[in-house]
C-alpha cells in the first residue's frame, strides 16, 4: 500500500506529480514539496535510524533543522553524504537514502545489545573504562568504539561537486521568512531599501505553512506566498530560499550557505552544489522563530513520539500523519492546537494529557490531567502509560505522541558576538539579551513574541527601527493573537532512562550522575555527558538538561546559565568553506614569461612561491634528472646557459631620498653607489637576524631597482612600505612592485657576452659594461630593455629584462643568437648547483635564524649609519667568537653523498645534541668537481678549514667523513665574473 498515512487533501505538496525514491533499498513514492521525512511518514515508515550509543530505534522528533534523530546517508557513490537530516531533505525523483548507525538491518540492529548494557554505558563511561592499560587504547578500544559508534559513513571518494563563494551587500538582512521576517521585508522593501531575505527552508513562510489559522481572508500559507511574490517583484529585494545564515560575525558580516543543487539529483553542469555567501549588511533583523521543546519521561524516544508542532507541520503542510491515532502530552495551550488541527483532519485523538489542572477543555476529544510516564512498542510507539492527577494509571493506545513543553526562541545568532540570552519567566525560556551583534534587531518568536499578530507587528517595528523609516507601515492582516499559557514542566519525576539528547543518547540519569560526580558548571556538564554536543547542538535538549541541573543544584535556570552558542547554526559541509580553492585551484599559479616556450622544450616544472619554474630541461636519452642537471651546469660553465629569473621580486624605488632609504633597509651602504652600478644588499630584521638579500641597481640618481628573493617578494615589499610610511614619513621616496612588469633572463657562461652582443644594441664590452654595471638599453634594434651585469652562478653573466609581453620573443631570440655556442637553457636545479658551487647564500642559509656574522658577512653591517637591525646585530649573544660560520663541506670519499640537514660532529666524540657542532643547509652533486658538495654552518667554522669531521644524519642513518673547506668551491678569486 502506498502513502497510507497521506491525508486525503490539503497541504503544500504537488499531488499531480510523483517522486520515486528508495530508503534502505526499498522503493517509495512522495510528491514535490515533501521532505524525505514527510514522504517516509506518508508511507508509514516511522523508524528511520538507530541512536548513537544504545542503538535504540528512532524516528523523527521534529519537522525541521533542529532534528536529532532522523539522520540518513543521502545519495550514493561519491556523493554519499552522512548525517543528513531527513526532516530538511527536499524530496527529488530518484533520491536514494540509507539508514545509518546500525549493524545488520535497521529493524534487527545487532548492536542494540548496547541498550541492554545501558547500566554500564552511562556518562563518563569511556573516561572511566578505557583508561587501563594505556596500550590497549590505540590497538583495541579505539578501533572497536570507532566501529560501533560514530554516525554515518563517508564515501571516501573525492567530492565530485563544486562549491562557490560569493559576496553580497545590503541595507537590511532579514534572517527567517516567517510572519515577522516577511513583515519586516515588506516594510523595508516597499521603502526602497536594499533587502536580503534568507530562509533555510525551501518554502518561505516559516510556521505560516504549518498552521491552519488565517491572516485576514487568506490562509497563512497563501498570505506568505503572496508576500513573497511581491518581494520577488521588487528590484531592491533579494529573496533567498534554501539559505541558512550560519553565523553572525563582526561589524555586520554574516555567513550564509545557499543550497543551490541539494534538491536535485545532480547539480547542473558548471553549477555549484552550494554557495557560501559573505553578506555585508548595515542592519539585521533576526526573525529566526522558535523551537518547541519536548518533555522527558521513561522511554520517550520511540519512533512516533515527536514534537506536537512537528505533528502539526506534517499534517498541515505535508498532509501526512504519523499514525491514525495520536495522543498529546503538553504543559501549555499550544499542544491543544495540534490536537485540534489533527482532529479536524479526521485523525483520532487518543487523549490530550496536560500537566495543568486548568487546561482548556472546550474540545471534542478527551483531555486528561496527568503525565505520560512510560511508553511501549519495540520499533515504534504502540502504547503510552499515563499517570492521572488522581494517581490512577491509564494506558492509551496510539501510534504517535506529540510533546509540547513550550517554545524556545532561536537566540543562537544573537549570541555569536559574546552575547548571552536572558531568562523570561512568562515563557520559561531564554530570550535575546541586551548585548546583540552590532546592528541586530530581533523580531517575532525569536524575540519571545509568540503570537502571529505580535510577530507581524514586531517585524514591521524592527524594520522601521533598524532603518529609521518614517514611511507608512504596510497594513497588517488580522491574525491569531493568543497569549502563552504555560506551566513549566521539564521531566517526569522518577524517570531515569528518559532521553534529553536523543542524538548523543544522554538521559536524565546521566545528568543526575554527572551532578553526583561533582560537575557543577554547565560547560562541564556538557562535556562530561556530551549533552548538546551532537550535530544538532542540543537545539531540542539543552533546556531540559539545564532545568534538571538547576533543580539538583538548588538554583534557578538562569543561574545555571547556558553554554556558548557558536557558528555554524546548522551542520555545514566542509566543502563549502573551501569553495573553489581545491586541487589545482588551491592557490593561484604564476607563470613566467618563458613558460610557453619552456613547455615546448619539455621542461619539468616546480612550484616556487606559486610560480611554476622550469626545474630542468630533459633531453632525449637522459634517464635521470641528475643527468639533465649535470649537463646544464657543465654547458653553462663551459659555454653559455640561459635561465628565466623573472620570479625574483623587483621593487622600483624612486625619489630624491631613494639612496638614503636603501641605506635604512640594507645593513650595508648605498648612498655612494654610482649611477649605472649594481650592489649586493643584505637586509636585516630589527632584531639583527638576516631577513632577505638581493641587489639594488642604480639606474639614475633618484631611481633604483631592488630585487628580493622569490619567496620573500611580498613580505619585503610590505616591510619597505612600513619603513617608508611609519618610520621615515618625510623621506621623498616612492615604491612600486615591478616583479611582473619585466621578463628577466640570466645569460651566464664564458660565451654570454658573445651571445648578448648579437641582441643588445649598445657596446657591452668589459670596458664599456664592467662587472656590476647596469643600464637602460635597447635590444634587437630598438626595444627598451634593462641590462645588469650580475652573476649568481659565478660565471661571466648578465641579466637582461624586457617588458613582459616581449619575454616569449626574447627567449627565442636569445636561443637563436646562442645557437652557435650551444646555448643551454637551465632550470632551478642547475641554478642551485651553481650557486652552491659558488658559495652564494640563499633561502636555506637565510633561514630566519642566521645573522650577517653567521653568513660571513658581519663586516658588511655598517656602523656609520642607521639601518634596520644594525643596533641589535651588535648584541653579545650574536657576536661570539665560536658562533656558527658558513663553510663548505666535501666528503673525504669522493663517492659519498652529503645529505642536507645532517649535523656536524667531531670524528671521535659522542653523537648527541650536546656535541653538535653545526649543520648542512644546502647540498648537491657538483658535476664540475665530480663529487658531492655542501654549504653549512659550523661553530667557529672560518677558523676550521681543512678539519675533518663526521656528518651525521640519524634520521636517514647516514654517517660520512667530511672535510671543512671554503664555501667558494669554484673560482674563489672571482676572475670569471670580471672576465
Amino acid at each position: 500500500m502506498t502513502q497510507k498515512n497521506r491525508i486525503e487533501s490539503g497541504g503544500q505538496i504537488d499531488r499531480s506529480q510523483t517522486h520515486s525514491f528508495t530508503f534502505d533499498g526499498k522503493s517509495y513514492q512522495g510528491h514535490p514539496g515533501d521532505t524525505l521525512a514527510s514522504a517516509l511518514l506518508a508511507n508509514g515508515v516511522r523508524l528511520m535510524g538507530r541512536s548513537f550509543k544504545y542503538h535504540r530505534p528512532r524516528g523523527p522528533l521534529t519537522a525541521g533543522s533542529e532534528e536529532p534523530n532522523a539522520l540518513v546517508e543521502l545519495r550514493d557513490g561519491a556523493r554519499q553524504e552522512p548525517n543528513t537530516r531527513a526532516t530538511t531533505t527536499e524530496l527529488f525523483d530518484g533520491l536514494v537514502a540509507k539508514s545509518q548507525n546500525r549493524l545488520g538491518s535497521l529493524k534487527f540492529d545487532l548492536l542494540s545489545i548496547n541498550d541492554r548494557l545501558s547500566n554500564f554505558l552511562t556518562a563518563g563511561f569511556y573516561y572511566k573504562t578505557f583508561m587501563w592499560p594505556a596500550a590497549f587504547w590505540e590497538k583495541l578500544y579505539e578501533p572497536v568504539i570507532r566501529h560501533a559508534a560514530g554516525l554515518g559513513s563517508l564515501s571516501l571518494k573525492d567530492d565530485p561537486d563544486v562549491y562557490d563563494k560569493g559576496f553580497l551587500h545590503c541595507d537590511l538582512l532579514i534572517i527567517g521568512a516567517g510572519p515577522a521576517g516577511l513583515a519586516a521585508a515588506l516594510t523595508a522593501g516597499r521603502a526602497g531599501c536594499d533587502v536580503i531575505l534568507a530562509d533555510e527552508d525551501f518554502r518561505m513562510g516559516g510556521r505560516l505553512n504549518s498552521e491552519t489559522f488565517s491572516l485576514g481572508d487568506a490562509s497563512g500559507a497563501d498570505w506568505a506566498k503572496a508576500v513573497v511574490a511581491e518581494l520577488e517583484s521588487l528590484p531592491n529585494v533579494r529573496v533567498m530560499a534554501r539559505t541558512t545564515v550560519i553565523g553572525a560575525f563582526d561589524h555586520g558580516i554574516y555567513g550564509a550557505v545557499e543550497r543551490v543543487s541539494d534538491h536535485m539529483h545532480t547539480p547542473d553542469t558548471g553549477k555549484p552544489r552550494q554557495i557560501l555567501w559573505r553578506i555585508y549588511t548595515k542592519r539585521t533583523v533576526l526573525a529566526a522563530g522558535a523551537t518547541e521543546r519536548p518533555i522527558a519521561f521513561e522511554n520517550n524516544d520511540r519512533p512516533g513520539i515527536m514534537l506536537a508542532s512537528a505533528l502539526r507541520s506534517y499534517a498541515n503542510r505535508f498532509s501526512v500523519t504519523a499514525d491514525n491515532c495520536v495522543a498529546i502530552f503538553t504543559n501549555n495551550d499550544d499542544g491543544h492546537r495540534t490536537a485540534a488541527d489533527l482532529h479536524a483532519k479526521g485523525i483520532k485523538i487518543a487523549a490530550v494529557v496536560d500537566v495543568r489542572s486548568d487546561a482548556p477543555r472546550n474540545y471534542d476529544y478527551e483531555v486528561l490531567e496527568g503525565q505520560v510516564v512510560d511508553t511501549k512498542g519495540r520499533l515504534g510507539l504502540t502504547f503510552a502509560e499515563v499517570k492521572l492527577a488522581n494517581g490512577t494509571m491509564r494506558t492509551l493506545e496510539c501510534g504517535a505522541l506529540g510533546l509540547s513543553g513550550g517554545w524556545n526562541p532561536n537566540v543562537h545568532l544573537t549570541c555569536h558576538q559574546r552575547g548571552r540570552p536572558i531568562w523570561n519567566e512568562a515563557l520559561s525560556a531564554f530570550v535575546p539579551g541586551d548585548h546583540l551583534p552590532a546592528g541586530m534587531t530581533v523580531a517575532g518568536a525569536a524575540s519571545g513574541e509568540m503570537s502571529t499578530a505580535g510577530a507581524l507587528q514586531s517585524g514591521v517595528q524592527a524594520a522601521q527601527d533598524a532603518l529609521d523609516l518614517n514611511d507608512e507601515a504596510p497594513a497588517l492582516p488580522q491574525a491569531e493573537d493568543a497569549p502563552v499559557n504555560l506551566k513549566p514542566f521539564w521531566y517526569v519525576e522518577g524517570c531515569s532512562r528518559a532521553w534529553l539528547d536523543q542524538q548523543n543518547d544522554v538521559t536524565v540519569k546521566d545528568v543526575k550522575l554527572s551532578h553526583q560526580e561533582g560537575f557543577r558548571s554547565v560547560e562541564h556538564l556538557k562535556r562530561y555527558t556530551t549533552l548538546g554536543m551532537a550535530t544538532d547542538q542540543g537545539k531540542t535538549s539543552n533546556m531540559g538538561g539545564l532545568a534538571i541541573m538547576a533543580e539538583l543544584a538548588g538554583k534557578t535556570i538562569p543561574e545555571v546559565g547556558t553554554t556558548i552558542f557558536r557558528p555554524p547554526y546548522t551542520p555545514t559541509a566542509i566543502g563549502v568553506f573551501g569553495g573553489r580553492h581545491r586541487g589545482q585551484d588551491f592557490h593561484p599559479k604564476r607563470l613566467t614569461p618563458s613558460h610557453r616556450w619552456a613547455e615546448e622544450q619539455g621542461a619539468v616544472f616546480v612550484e616556487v612561491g606559486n610560480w611554476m619554474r622550469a626545474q630542468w630541461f630533459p633531453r632525449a636519452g637522459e634517464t635521470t634528472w641528475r643527468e639533465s642537471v649535470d649537463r646544464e651546469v657543465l654547458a653553462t660553465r663551459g659555454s653559455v646557459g640561459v635561465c628565466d629569473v623573472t620570479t625574483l621580486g623587483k621593487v622600483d624605488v624612486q625619489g630624491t631620498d631613494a639612496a638614503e632609504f636603501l641605506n635604512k633597509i640594507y645593513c650595508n651602504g648605498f648612498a655612494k653607489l654610482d649611477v649605472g652600478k649594481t650592489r649586493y644588499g643584505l637586509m636585516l630584521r630589527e632584531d639583527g637576524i638576516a631577513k632577505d638579500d638581493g641587489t639594488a641597481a642604480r639606474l639614475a640618481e633618484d631611481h633604483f631597482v631592488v630585487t628580493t628573493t622569490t619567496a620573500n617578494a611580498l613580505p619585503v615589499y610590505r616591510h619597505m612600505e612600513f619603513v617608508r610610511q611609519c618610520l621615515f614619513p618625510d623621506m621623498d621616496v616612492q615604491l612600486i612592485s615591478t616583479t611582473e612588469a619585466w621578463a628577466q633572463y640570466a645569460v651566464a657562461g664564458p660565451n654570454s657576452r658573445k651571445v648578448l652582443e648579437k641582441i643588445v644594441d649598445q657596446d657591452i664590452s668589459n670596458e664599456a659594461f664592467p662587472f656590476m654595471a647596469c643600464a637602460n638599453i635597447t635590444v634587437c634594434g630598438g626595444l627598451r630593455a634593462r641590462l645588469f651585469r650580475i652573476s649568481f652562478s659565478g660565471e661571466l653573466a648578465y641579466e637582461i629584462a624586457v617588458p613582459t609581453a616581449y619575454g616569449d620573443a626574447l627567449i627565442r631570440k636569445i636561443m637563436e643568437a646562442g645557437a652557435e655556442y650551444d646555448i643551454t637553457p637551465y632550470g632551478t636545479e642547475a641554478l642551485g648547483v651553481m650557486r652552491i658551487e659558488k658559495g652564494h647564500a640563499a633561502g636555506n642559509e637565510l633561514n630566519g635564524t642566521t645573522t650577517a656574522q653567521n653568513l660571513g658577512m658581519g663586516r658588511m653591517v655598517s656602523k656609520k649609519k642607521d639601518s634596520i637591525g644594525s643596533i641589535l646585530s651588535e648584541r653579545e649573544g650574536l657576536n661570539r667568537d665560536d658562533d656558527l660560520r658558513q663553510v663548505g663541506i666535501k666528503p673525504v670519499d669522493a663517492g659519498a653523498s652529503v645529505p642536507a640537514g645532517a649535523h656536524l660532529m667531531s670524528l671521535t666524540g659522542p653523537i648527541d645534541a650536546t656535541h653538535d657542532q653545526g649543520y648542512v643547509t644546502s647540498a648537491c652533486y657538483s658535476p664540475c668537481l665530480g663529487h658531492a658538495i655542501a654549504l653549512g654552518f659550523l661553530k667557529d667554522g672560518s677558523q676550521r678549514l681543512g678539519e675533518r669531521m663526521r656528518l651525521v644524519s640519524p634520521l636517514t642513518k647516514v654517517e660520512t667523513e667530511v672535510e671543512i673547506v671554503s664555501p667558494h668551491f669554484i673560482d674563489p678569486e672571482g676572475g670569471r665574473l670580471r672576465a
Partner: protein
Amino acid sequence: MIIEHPLLGPRDAAEFTYLGDARLIDRPDWQSETAAKDFFEYGYLRDNPAGWHQELWFHEAGDRSWLVITRNTITHEISKVELARDVARSRGRSK
C-alpha cells in the same frame, strides 16, 4: 571585521595584513647612549592588552597604506582609524 579606511571607507579586514602594536612606530634613536637597551625594549617589550589597543595594519589588497587602528581586542570594536604616516609625523618622525 570591517575597517573604516580613512580614505576609502569601509573595507573588509580580509584585505589587510596585521603587524601588531603601533608602538613599532616609535623606533629609538640609534645614536642614543642607551640605544642597545632602547632597541631591545622596542623589539621585545610590547603590550598585549585585553581591551583597547593601537595596532598597525597594512592594506595589502588595497591602497598599500599602513594604518593605525584603535581596536578593542575583546569586542573587536574599532574606535579610530588613521593613516600611519600621519600618526608617525604627529609623533615627531621625519626622515
